[in-house]
């Protein structure tokens, strides 16, 4: 079921959504959250696919906001979907033209599911400062993806400077399987770590966060070795047992699919460690609605930005008008 609305208003979208829900019956009544996706026109398809996968695990009201050129005339187009091609979810895709894009929250606010948590996900270049986007200010969790930035390492630094509890990044989500393997390797032995290395392609933000994590948890200096990729290709921890004998953990995944695990004096073992799809990453993020303190520590450890975990969780909207920049340039 879908309704397409051209040159419409926020109120009409609310009514269309209500009408769609009635037609669909009890199809989608148990919403766990609202997911706001900020995305460029060319990535709408990608975001929809990922959100559909994630929605299979966490039924949500999906609100996709596509901001078109600020210079165009103000206009709002919308497509309302309930239980259609986007899976067990209610979705509204909104295209905002002109200066309406700067006030996207005026359309989104009445569409949020009542009293359910709000997650905002920027599928594209992460915002410079989240407080300048009202869609980020109203969210409980904010998901960015530094891997999509032109300079991922610089983007991580920005994320640390701009951090507030409740922020998270898909570059961090990508490290989970690696972290799980490393953590369970240290479950098996009582050891004192002395060093750690991560191998990854140049400027990989996940490798940086994995290093930051090892750094903050183990209290050792962890470094990144540059490799050809794809993504993270290896992780090692050097340690000594209580009796002084060395205990090493190494995981290597040169092909992005199959990993070889070696720990202590056990035999080598092969196990699948595939790079995960965007939808799986998003689904993992939507599992928890509380701030991820471990991420904050890893981010702080890598970037060297201090005291980020104790910042206030709420942001205040900072108004930044693109017209100022133009005015500044012309004067």
């Amino acid at each position, binding site marked *: 079921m879908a309704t397409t609305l051209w040159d419409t208003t926020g109120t009409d979208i609310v009514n269309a959504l209500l009408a769609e829900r009635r037609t669909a019956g009890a199809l989608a009544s148990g919403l766990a959250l609202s997911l706001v996706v900020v995305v460029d026109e060319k990535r709408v398809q990608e975001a929809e696919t990922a959100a559909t996968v994630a929605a299979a695990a966490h039924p949500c009201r999906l609100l996709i906001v596509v901001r078109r050129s600020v210079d165009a005339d103000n206009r709002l187009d919308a497509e309302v979907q309930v239980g259609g091609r986007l899976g067990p979810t209610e979705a509204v895709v909104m295209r905002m033209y002109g200066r309406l894009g700067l006030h996207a929250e005026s359309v989104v606010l009445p569409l949020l599911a009542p009293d359910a948590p709000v997650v905002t996900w920027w599928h594209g270049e992460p915002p410079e400062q989240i407080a300048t986007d009202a869609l980020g200010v109203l969210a409980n969790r904010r998901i960015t993806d530094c891997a999509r930035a032109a300079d991922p390492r610089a983007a991580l630094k920005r994320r640390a400077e701009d951090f507030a509890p409740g922020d998270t990044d898909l570059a961090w989500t990508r490290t989970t399987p690696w972290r*799980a393997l490393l953590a369970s390797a240290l479950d098996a032995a009582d050891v004192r770590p002395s060093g750690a290395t991560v191998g990854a392609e140049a400027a990989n933000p996940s490798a940086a966060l994995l290093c930051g994590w090892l750094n903050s948890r183990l209290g050792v200096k962890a470094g990144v070795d540059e490799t050809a990729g794809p993504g993270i290709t290896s992780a090692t921890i050097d340690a000594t047992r209580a009796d002084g004998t060395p205990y090493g953990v190494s995981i290597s995944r040169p092909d992005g699919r199959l990993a070889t695990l070696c720990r202590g004096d056990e035999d080598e073992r092969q196990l699948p460690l595939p790079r995960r799809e965007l939808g799986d990453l998003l689904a993992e993020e939507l599992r928890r609605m509380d701030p991820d303190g*471990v991420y904050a520590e890893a981010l702080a450890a890598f970037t060297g930005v201090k005291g980020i975990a104790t910042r206030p969780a709420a942001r205040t909207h900072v108004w930044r008008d693109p017209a100022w920049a133009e005015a500044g340039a012309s004067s």
Partner: protein
Amino acid sequence: MTNPLRDPRDRRLPRVPDPCALVVFGVTGDLARKKLIPAVYDLGNRGLLPPGFVLLGFARRDWGVGEFESLARDAAQQHSRTEFREDVWRRIADSLCFLPGSFDDNDAFDALAAKLIELEDTHGIKGNAAFYLSIPPPAFPVVLDQMARTKMADNAERGGWRRVVVEKPFGHDLESARELNTLVDTVFTAKDVFRIDHYLGKETVQNLLALRFANTLFEPIWNSHFVDSVQITMAEDVGIGGRAGFYDNAGAARDVLQNHLLQLLALTAMEEPVSFDAESIRIEKLKALNAISLPEDKKSYAIRGQYDQGWLAGQRVPAYRDEKDVPKDSRTETYAAVRLGVETRRWAGVPFYLRTGKRLPRRVTEIAVVFKRAPHLPFDATDTVELGHNQLVVRVQPDEGVTLRFGSKVPGSAMEVRDVSMDFLYGESFTESSPEAYERLILDVLLGDQTLFPRNEEVDASWQVIDPLEAFWAGSEPHKYRAGEWGPTEADDMLARDGRVWRRP
């Protein structure tokens, strides 16, 4: 020392068991093929198996590991919950072992013991092994004796842990259950024995505890002041299948009432545990089970039935006595309904109606808490004719979720109040397709978490409820009910006598 990479806040990281072997006796059986092997695959697919994991099959087949692998592969492909992925399977297939042998064959068990020692080197399992007894109850003593003889079950012998998983039935009466418990507990230690009641692995059953103890809304009314009665139903539409040999000796009360229904009752009736660890929950469940009282008038309040021929789901089905391998004069019950009491301050005077049966119209398991009617209704009597009791229904399977039934005004100019349902569908707010019960339970066994496993005291207490019923029923003829009906009319009379009716699930 604690692992520096672990942090209680870091809940993205899954708990993964130590390297270990899972030894399945009777690995060619139905349960292993339909539930155990697929569950192992699903765990592997979710990355929850340890790097050194071995699935070791033991059965009386003249097989090599090749045949076992193709059986396991088919099982995983057909019955696994998650998508079948070749590279995940390859990894599990690499760690399959098979040992042929019968249970009285000393050589086979010596070979098994030797194999477990060999696996310590090749797979680094460090002596950790869980033994899954997926075998008929008469074979238990033989296998357990073999394990004692080869010291396979001895934790101290090789280091690491040795655990055993036992499927129901846990005996057929109090005496035999005690014998079995003593045997298992002497071969293994009590903390290493895991009795599987797969109902307890279901998400909704665990959700019952969350519902009761994580909310302020329900617990204040969860007592005899507000609750009129509780109905616990487990209905199956199937007959006895090929299990005539076992079923005809057991019957519905031993097969279902003794374990599943009494466990559900215990979880519904128990007090709040002081914490959520296995021991605290066990203490509270045991208190509830020990407080169960049987009806004085068993003739009216303990009804058993046996299905006659009839029509079910558009098909003609035979009577129980005409099923294959069932004696023509069998007096085994396929339906049991009983009124129990829970003698505590919380539940004094609240009847717990339990029923279970085969060849009932649909497969459903649910716990319905029926509340008292409002003490005063400020409406005309005619306005509320259609208003029933408020109900809170925990749907265990299928369609897992919770339903709340309450009165609501019918839209229109007249004041009319009618019952409506508010539904929480488990799969709707959290569709992360809930793990299969066996998946969860096997993981818990490998992690050594006993929270969801009944202990031998609970088995004891349940038999103390069932034995007097069986004694009362012995020698009597079960009431007949037509296949495809909700049980014998005597069961309806039982509730009618108390001024109540069974809920149609």
